[in-house]
């Protein structure tokens, strides 16, 4: 039943997948083996108590009531009370233990996966869609927690109950059991059929829900566009169509369980009827006691209910298994930019030397080749060039977001691949194009760049680039909470926070990716001023989108078609009349005077 028909590729688990998942899960669970042993004992004990109830009733009827022996009856009742109390305690301990093991497992898994995600470098994030990465940590682990919180206990105890019932029934009367087991093949067949069909239906429903919700989401967040084009009715009709499909998928899945559940119920009652009828016949023959028949009727529910419950659990177990497989695969993803054994710290005050640098993607697409460039300490250099020419790639290689495929980047004579990652991050900070704010206060956001910094140090850093007053004047000052990704701050203000982070990190080398989109004029001036202050006295590599920025740099490097076309000061390059001069006149010509 593991290889259910209709499960999509993502959710498929083959035999080797199952083995891997089990082996890796075993490794994760090793610290909890003692607790697991205790839990297993508890589960067995609890199953025994559940099975003991009907046995005691049988004993009471056959040995006590029928023969009129009230002592036996009383003893049985006392025994039943004891069993019930033991059952209570055992069940309780079992729930707590299994939850603790399961939740600890999930907690460890979350921490381990996230740690690994943090270790993975930029190429990974460029390759993978953000939504997919996030879903590993959310929906994949959530599908496990459903199993841990309810399913696992149900799975284990139902399996045991099923097994135990068969054992007990065999012991009491194997003949009657064989009779009852005649109902098992149809139940199992029905369960397999149900399992297959409901799997297909489940995927249908899941698709339907996904589509309906994303349509709903778009309808809400795009409502202004819809109204602007007066398309409310058309969109509503479209939504109704998708919603109708979801309804139909729901109904298909209900139809499946609507035939399955009666089959199980009928099998259950049919077996009861058979047990009473044929059992009665055997009582008549003198082969069985009435107590045994009563006992059978009571225990039969222990036989059929677990089958039904287990079949409903298969989807959960299967999707949990698939989720685990994906998580383990993620944990096995190699870090693209690893730290070499015996790596050394970067020296301070060294020049950046780029020699013979080349980079191509895994599929062989060449982005950059043969770049030679030396950047002196405290020099400010602007990288310019058309979109896609490779200027960002060059900056990323210098920051070691990627490793080059040819040539090398050295800082103070040390190849970046031989340097410790920690010393590289101390020496060099990258300020991305878009200012991104995390949940928390403004202070926390700046402090991200140097976790140990005091509030005073954060304020000093902001003051050093001239932006402290702007944020301090907010009603809550630097304690202002950033909500919803900083929606209450303008794009420019977000960039300022980003620059403040760099000021706090206080690196020797700064890589700045200038924003392409324009800001409102007032803020733009403040941002430029802050950038200016920040870069003074530091080696600065700025990916310039505005040629005004380039003009202010000490030197300009023009990247065109994957190689370095020109390097020189603004004036030199204008004079030379090459790439840069052409770019500049095209751009400046468009700026009305």
């Amino acid at each position, binding site marked *: 039943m593991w290889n259910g028909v209709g499960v999509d590729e993502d959710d498929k688990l083959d035999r080797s997948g199952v083995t891997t998942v089990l082996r890796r899960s075993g490794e994760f669970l090793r610290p909890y083996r003692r607790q697991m042993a205790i839990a297993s004992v508890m589960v067995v004990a609890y199953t025994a108590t559940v099975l003991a109830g009907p046995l005691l009733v049988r004993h009471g009827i056959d040995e*006590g009531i029928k023969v009129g022996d009230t002592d036996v009856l009383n003893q049985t009742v006392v025994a039943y009370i004891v069993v019930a109390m033991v059952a209570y305690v055992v069940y309780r301990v079992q729930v707590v233990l299994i939850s603790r093991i399961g939740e600890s497992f999930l907690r460890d898994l979350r921490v381990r996966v996230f740690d690994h995600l943090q270790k993975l470098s930029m190429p990974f994030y460029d390759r993978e869609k953000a939504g997919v990465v*996030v879903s590993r940590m959310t929906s994949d682990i959530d599908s496990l927690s459903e199993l841990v919180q309810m399913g696992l206990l149900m799975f284990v105890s139902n399996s045991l109950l099923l097994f135990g019932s068969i054992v007990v029934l065999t012991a009491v009367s194997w003949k009657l059991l064989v009779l009852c087991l005649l109902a098992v093949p149809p139940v199992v067949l029905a369960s397999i059929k149900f399992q297959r069909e409901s799997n297909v239906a489940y995927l249908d429903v899941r698709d339907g829900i996904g589509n309906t919700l994303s349509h709903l989401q778009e309808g809400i*967040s795009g409502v*202004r566009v819809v109204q602007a084009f007066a398309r409310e009715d058309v969109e509503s009709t479209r939504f109704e169509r998708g919603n109708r499909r979801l309804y139909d998928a729901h109904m298909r899945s209900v139809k499946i369980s609507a035939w399955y559940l009666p089959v199980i119920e009928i099998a259950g*009652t049919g077996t009861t009827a058979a047990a009473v009828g*044929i059992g009665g016949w055997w009582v*008549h023959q003198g082969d069985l006691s009435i107590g045994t028949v009563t006992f059978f009727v009571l225990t039969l529910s222990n036989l059929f209910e677990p089958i039904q419950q287990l079949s409903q659990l298969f989807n959960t177990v299967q999707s949990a298994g698939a989720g685990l497989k994906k998580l383990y695969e993620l944990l096995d993803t190699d870090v693209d930019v690893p730290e070499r054994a015996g790596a050394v710290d970067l020296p301070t005050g060294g020049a950046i030397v780029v020699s013979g640098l080349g980079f191509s993607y895994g599929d062989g697409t060449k982005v950059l080749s043969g770049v030679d460039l030396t950047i002196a300490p405290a020099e400010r250099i602007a990288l310019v060039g058309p979109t896609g020419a490779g200027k960002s790639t060059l900056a990323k290689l210098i920051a070691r977001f990627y490793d080059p495929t040819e040539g090398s980047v050295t800082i103070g004579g040390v190849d970046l691949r031989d340097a410790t990652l920690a010393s590289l991050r101390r020496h060099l900070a990258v300020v991305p194009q878009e200012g991104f704010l995390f949940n928390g206060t403004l202070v926390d956001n700046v402090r991200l760049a140097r976790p140990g910094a005091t509030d005073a140090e954060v304020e000093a850093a902001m003051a050093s680039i001239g932006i402290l007053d702007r944020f301090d004047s907010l009603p809550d000052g630097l304690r202002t909470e950033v909500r919803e990704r900083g929606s209450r701050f303008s794009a420019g203000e977000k960039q300022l926070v980003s620059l403040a982070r760099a000021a706090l990190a206080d690196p020797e080398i700064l890589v700045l990716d200038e924003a*392409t989109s324009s800001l409102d004029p007032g803020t733009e001036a403040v941002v430029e001023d802050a950038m200016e202050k920040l870069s003074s006295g530091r080696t600065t590599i700025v990916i310039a989108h505005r040629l*005004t920025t380039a003009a202010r740099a000490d030197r300009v490097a023009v990247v065109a078609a994957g190689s370095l076309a020109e390097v020189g000061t603004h004036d030199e390059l204008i004079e030379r009349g090459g790439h840069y001069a052409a770019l500049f006149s095209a751009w400046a010509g468009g700026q009305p005077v």
Partner: protein
Amino acid sequence: MVKQAIDRGIEADDMSALLRWSLVIAVVGVVSGVLTGMRRYLAFREARMVEKTLRDRLFAHVQRLHFAYHDEVQAGQLMSRGNTDLQQVQAFVVMIPLTIANGMTVVGVTAILISLDPFLALVALGALPLINVVAKRFGTKLFPSVMAIQRESAELASVVEESVAGVRVVKGFGAQDVLRRRLRTEADDVYDASMEAARTRATFLPALELLPNVGLIAVLFFGGHRVVTEAITLGSLVAFNVYVVLLIWPLRMLGMIIANGQRASAAAGRVAEVLSTDPVIVDRSDARRLGPGGGEIRFEHVEFAYGDGDAAIPVLHDFDLHVEAGTSVALVGATGCGKSTVGRLIPRFYDVVSGRVLVDGCDVRDVRTTELRRSIGLVFEETFLFSDSIGANIAFADPDASIEAVQRAARLAGAHEFIEALDEGYDSIIGERGYSLSGGQRQRIAIARAILADPRVLILDDATSSVDPTKEHEIRDALAEVMAGRTTVVIAHRAATIALADRVVLLDEGRVIAEGTHEGLLETNARYREVLAAVDDSAGDQAEEVTA
């Protein structure tokens, strides 16, 4: 019936009676099984229908609700109305037939038990109401823990989302450890919340298992003694046991249903709140057609504020503006001066507080909104594209538009070239599961969308802000062509875009403070220079340098 079979068949050793009763049990089993299946089917059909209908109505209603409503209410809130809230309503509706069936089972079984033996019935049922009480308490105690788990999981998810969305910041500053610590805290919180829920389950689940046993034990004890004293038959005793077992599930369910019902009614209330909000911008009963015209726009003494009462934020005061048909005007001013608002009043996204907005001589409140909006092309400051093909996005205003029309619009917006370069061209799906385009590319598609239907009025709200400056001149040429002979309102920061307009209107604090050409204002108006200065200061200098 089991009792009858045992008493009349096995006890009395009457084989034909035994056979008869066994068959009756089997038949009743089949009938009840089929009926259970039908009940389940019908219950789900009703419940899903309710969910579907409500979701359709919710969507249609949200589509019609005015801008001001959407300004106030977060998208996430509306999402959960249409998602979790409706699911809770559905989950309750589906329980109704089952609840009725369960109630009838409880009443019926109780009646049978009392008729069999009132004393034993009292003994057997004495503990059962407790199940209901315990189940209900279980529901109410578990609910907060479950909510806590959801809350903590959501917080954990937001740390993960942030770490991925902000990965450039994290890597750029080497902030991995900070996030790692944050996640560890959240993972611990999720663990604690889950264990809290587990402890609640550990207290109540065993009790729910134990309580029915109390009844069974009592029946065995008292009933057993009564059988021995021959007050009742053995069959009655066995039947009693079976009936008591029958009651366990319905009673347990009742507790759950009560807890569900409370949640569902709260959810239904939240959905009703949205549905009962009336759209403010609606057509008058005597709304007319928009007369013919070239798209002349006139604002007369317009007062406007966002929100109302004490919370109102005044934006426009005694605002007058006249844009002649076929001409273009650029609205310029510092952030918050009201220039975007002007663009939003023309398609009647909001109603003015006083004064009038006229398009081709008609007050926008007097014409059919659909028609008014269809004759206006609009590009928003924040580009929103649908998860659909590029072609479908451009043809949003008119899905039946020919591919030639779509390509013509794309060409005018300077988007045709990059669209063609994609593997699937105009059929490329964009959005979450498709291609991700750059801000500038998205904006160009939005411009193409706005001009597809050849609107008489075009409103460009900062339409070129995300376009890469090195590409800006390309789109500028395209815009110039689009604007030629069309009434256009441009809201812009960049001087280059502003210069495309025939005329510039400078706004400050909700009023027009100067009008003229770009060059004229640049020369004569200090405030205008001030507003533009910051961006174009250095650019101007450089340009001068080059030309000099």
